[in-house]
């Protein structure tokens, strides 16, 4: 499983990455966490509002920080 966090480096983007990382650690999940800061790559993935999170290439959320429960639900 690959989780991608899209964000050019704003505070909300770091927060998003932190939430996902914490949930992964808590569940001891072995998903691969990637961070994409390049605008071209973001646009290619169809992201229009940051932060955004994709799981295995499917965008799950954009424009806000995910809740821990949401991240848990994606991983299940």
């Amino acid at each position, binding site marked *: 499983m690959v989780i991608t966090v*899209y*964000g*050019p*480096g*704003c505070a*909300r*983007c770091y927060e998003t990455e932190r939430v996902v990382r914490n949930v992964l650690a808590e569940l001891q999940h072995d998903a691969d966490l990637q961070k994409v800061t390049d*605008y*071209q790559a*973001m*646009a*290619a*993935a*169809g*992201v*229009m*509002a*940051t932060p955004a999170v994709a799981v295995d290439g*499917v*965008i*799950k*959320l*954009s*424009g*806000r*920080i995910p809740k821990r429960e949401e991240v848990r639900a994606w991983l299940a």
Partner: protein
Amino acid sequence: MFAVGLAAAAAWFLVYRSLAGLARWVTYGLAGLAPGTRLASALEFFVYEAPKVLMLLVVVVFGVGIVRSFFTPERTRLVLAGRRESAGNVLAALLGTVTPFCSCSAVPLFIGFVTAGVPLGVTFSFLVSAPMVNEVALVLLLGLLGWKVAALYFVTGLLIAIFAGWTIGRLRLERHVEPWVYQMRGAAATDDDARLTRDDRARAGTDAVRDIVGKVWPWVLAGIAVGAAIHGYVPEQFMAGIMGRGAWWSVPLAVAMGIPMYSNAAGIVPVVQALLGKGAALGTVLAFMMAVIALSLPEIIILRKVLRPPLIATFVGVVGTGILLVGYLFNAIL
């Protein structure tokens, strides 16, 4: 859920109504200051305005958070794609006021719009209105300067966004967009907000309060503190000579000073209010405020990733001109 909401609304209203009395009590009772002194005037201003503005902010941001859960950037793009100019500019400026937007996502949003067939000028109408006409600015104007000024700001902000986008569209500047943008094919984005329940939308409201009010409250307090100091210590009519109606050069100067400055509406409106009270002209201070919020150096630097310098210069020039006209117009008619 409903009963809790009703009780909260009643409590809010009661506290809000008693703020003026509370501020008097704190200033003259608790602090024991003599009426008419500078310190008393500054303190009463702060103790009254700070909770008032924060309380208004909570209510409006909650409401706007709910409204915004109906308008995702994806849906806005769908509405604007393939629109003709003119009508498209008007629609884009209006949607810019309700679509969630943060200047850090200006670039992905820009790419998403133009690759989906939203005309360049229509995209710019959105990009001008989204940061400039927002709920935080309107609440602060409403709370500190009254509904007339707030309405004036709302309408002229929209007009500038429409005019700027339309002009950029007419100038045919597509060649000054970085070429790789048009070579991209936007992937299909998911619409994850399609099936929200009523509870989800209420949560969107409380999330917005936590997110936005949580972020701007220090700015509000700092702005009101500066405003309070100006209110208490700067002599009446002090600003009349510098930012008054008679000084023709004050509007361009205010715009030129506002562009590189970066603050948000929460920090700038209390200062604007205090300047007005000291004889500054409304058109001049509105122009200053618009320039600070709508044109900021960080956003210009971010947009450089997708726009070439001639297009950036045109964008700043056209929006700046619009703001200038608004400033002169208000100084002339009010």
